[in-house]
């Protein structure tokens, strides 16, 4: 050890709620040298954020510390007076959070919020502060920093907001930056830029960094050492090369193996066409004035066309706001669109609501947020069986129960738990319940709207495997909407790349990945497989 900046010794953190005590972190020890980057990886709930927030004592009042000590520059952070820890916060140790929207106060201009951190820790005049803020906005790579200074947070994009957050965190030139998943909420191309920015600034300022993430790819790129956390404990700490080449702990190996890889199962090109979409448009009117005259349109989806064969998977990829989810909803007639949607011989846009309701059993959807798509007031059996009452009326309760149990087994859920409520299950299980709900109607095709992006990597892997095996078993057709190209490559036969509502590029999966024609596609692929 040369110059230790931060030491955490045997730290345990618990949360006290009423009579119940939940252990979040157990006996975690780590150290951080000056100028070093330590990556903490782990799945959600592994205690990585709690560990980091303990350093600045930013945890809610229900947190208790049964054991351990945290030393920053030799001073005990846990035993310090409130007044003293406040002097460290934002001054010697800064934090960048995951959600750039909610970490900025929407009511104040960017400039004011940056100045505030300066005034707190330095005696400085207003004009000096303004100059410094301006310099930093420039330094974090914002275009037109002078206008950004007087902008409100909602006028900035996600990436810009995160740059402002970084400027605010670094303006006092701290010794340690805690970056808590700073790129997770951003688009892939923006993610890469922000990571580069953080690395550059770290080098310039010579500060240490504690980088928290669930993404092994990022850690590999950025960290000097990696600590792997599981259920509140650090299972392994090592340099990235060794972690990836020779993981010592089975859990680390498990994490590395869960990176999606391989391609989709082969599909027969001779299959019949199931879905034909041409000229699909979803335009939202922009209305102005008292009379709400339509002055223009937001073209969320602007004329996309594709055909999809039975048993195949079509991937729709693009960054947020590219219109991919809107397109998926339009195909299922969950919003209003113009253009042609042919499901078999049925033209969906020429049908009445009741006729479409009949057709719904043939087309189903899986949502991004698995818990949000399940009614918390209904038991699992009620959720899965709900579609039956409409599409298979006249079943008696026993038959219905049998079908529910059968479909639960198919998606890998224990039928014995069917009387429990959604909140008793984990994220992966929620998604299985949602798949079972769709599958029980024996649909022909499903729209999968980012079904794995809110899940941990290892769970993601299991859900993808399940989707693949179901596709094989039932000859299902998928439309897979995602921003995660790694996942897309492992599941999709064909891909369309969307940007601003239009298709930029389309074609078979292996062609897109090996020989992308468009600059935009190339950029997407490059950032996804750094």
């Amino acid at each position, binding site marked *: 050890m040369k110059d230790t900046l931060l030491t955490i010794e045997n730290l345990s953190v618990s949360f006290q709620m*009423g009579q119940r005590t939940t252990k979040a972190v157990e006996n975690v020890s780590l150290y951080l040298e000056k100028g070093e980057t330590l990556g903490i990886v782990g799945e959600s709930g592994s205690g990585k954020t709690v560990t980091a927030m303990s350093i600045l004592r930013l945890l809610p009042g229900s947190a208790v510390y049964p054991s351990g000590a945290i030393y920053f520059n030799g001073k005990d952070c846990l035993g310090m007076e409130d007044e003293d820890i406040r002097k460290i916060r934002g001054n010697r140790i800064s934090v960048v959070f995951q959600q750039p929207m909610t970490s900025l106060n929407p009511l104040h201009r960017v400039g004011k919020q940056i100045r505030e951190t300066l005034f707190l820790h330095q005696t400085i005049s207003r004009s000096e502060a303004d100059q410094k803020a301006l310099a930093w906005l420039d330094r974090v790579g914002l275009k037109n920093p002078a206008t950004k200074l007087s902008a409100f947070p909602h006028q900035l994009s996600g990436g810009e907001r995160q740059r402002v957050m970084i400027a605010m965190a670094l303006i006092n030139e701290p010794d340690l930056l805690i970056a808590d998943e700073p790129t997770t909420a951003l688009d892939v191309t923006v993610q890469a830029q922000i990571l580069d920015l953080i690395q550059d600034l770290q080098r310039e300022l010579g500060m240490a960094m504690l980088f928290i993430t669930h993404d092994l790819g990022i850690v590999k790129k950025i960290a000097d050492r990696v600590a792997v956390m599981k259920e509140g404990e650090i299972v392994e700490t090592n340099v990235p090369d060794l972690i990836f080449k020779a993981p010592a702990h089975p859990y680390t190996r498990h994490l590395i193996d869960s990176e999606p890889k391989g391609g989709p199962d082969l599909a027969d090109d001779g299959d019949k066409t199931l879905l034909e979409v041409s000229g699909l448009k979803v335009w939202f009117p922009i209305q102005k004035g008292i009379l709400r005259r339509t002055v223009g349109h937001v073209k969320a989806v602007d004329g996309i066309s594709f055909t999809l064969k039975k048993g195949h998977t079509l991937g729709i990829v693009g960054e947020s706001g590219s219109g991919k989810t809107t397109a998926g909803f339009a195909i*299922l007639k969950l919003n209003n669109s113009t253009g042609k949607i042919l499901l078999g011989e049925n033209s969906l846009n020429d049908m009445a609501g009741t006729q479409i309701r009949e057709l719904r059993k043939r087309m189903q*959807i899986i949502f991004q947020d698995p818990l949000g798509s*399940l*009614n918390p007031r209904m038991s699992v059996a009620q959720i899965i069986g*709900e579609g039956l009452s409409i599409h298979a009326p006249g079943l008696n309760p026993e038959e219905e129960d049998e079908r529910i149990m059968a479909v639960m087994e198919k998606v890998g859920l224990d039928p014995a738990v069917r009387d429990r409520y959604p909140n008793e299950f984990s994220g992966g299980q929620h998604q299985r319940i949602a798949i079972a709900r769709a599958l029980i109607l024996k649909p022909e095709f499903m729209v999968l709207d980012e079904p794995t992006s809110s899940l941990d990597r290892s769970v993601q892997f299991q859900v993808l495997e399940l989707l693949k095996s179901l596709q094989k078993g039932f000859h299902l057709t998928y439309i897979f909407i995602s921003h995660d190209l790694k996942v897309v490559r492992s599941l999709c036969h064909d891909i369309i790349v969307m940007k601003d509502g239009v298709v930029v590029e389309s074609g078979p999966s292996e062609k897109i990945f090996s020989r992308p024609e468009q600059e935009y596609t190339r950029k997407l692929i490059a950032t996804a497989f750094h």
Partner: protein
Amino acid sequence: MKRINQERWNRFKANRRAYVSLYVFGVLFFVTLFSELIANEKPLLIYHDGEFFCPLVKDYAEMRFGGEFETPADYRDPYVMDLIKAKGWMIRPLIPFSYHTINYNLGRPAPSPPSRTNWIGTDDRGRDVLARLLYGFRISVLFGLTLTLFSSAIGITAGAVQGYYGGIPDILGQRFIEIWSSLPTLFLLIILSSVVQPNFWWLLGITLLFGWMSLVGVVRAEFLRGRNFEYVTAAKALGLSDMRIIFRHVLPNAMVASITFMPFILGGSITTLTSLDFLGFGLPVGSPSLGELLAQGKANMQAPWLGLSAFIVLSLMFSLLVFIGEGVRDALDPRKVY
């Protein structure tokens, strides 16, 4: 869901004041439901000449007991009492007056002060105040409950339709409510009650006409929020009908807010009836009513038992309802769930 309701009930019970209030209110309401058995001029049971008579259910002519008239027997008449006692016995209720019974042998002009026969005195027409309080409490609570039930049903439906469909139904509904709620309700009630002779159902109808809007806002807000939930979209994708989505998936979210409001709506409904009665535009003349008793108390300041007893009953009732409402609100508070 059962479990979460169990938890809520436990949390309600843990609030001693609310739980005791609910208990007291429940007992009071249950007891007053049987006011006829407690306060009545007619005996509960008569045994006369080897036969049983039940005057509560059936009218008997005085001649049946050996009297002279064919008219129904007046069981408070000493002559009739003697006739019955000569050949049998009778059981009288605890309070031998109904709400409309006029006690003619007061010995001093009405309103008479509390005495052994009239425990909290009589009103200015010689009617027993305690009996009138019992019946008055019952009719107030029954009126309040019915009004709460109907106005909640209408309010929730209107809020649900506006919130779920949004757009034109919402705009039209909201503007209508704005206009409707700005009508001067009291004057309309006064005019209406001078056109028709109001009875219980008339009053209920009129107050309902202007009182159904209290829940619309809350329910509409919950529906505006709830219709964008992913599980609602999921239900649409399953092909469920709008009705089913509303009832199954969105309405339960609005119920917590609605139920929280209900004890307060009940209190408000009772206040409406009481104030109408107080002003003389309420229930028909002679009906037992707390508002009318208050008015009598105001007119007869020399007889404080009138105003005081009505005041005590009303304030007790409203305090109980507010305590219950507080308890319900805290028990349903989602922030207290962990």
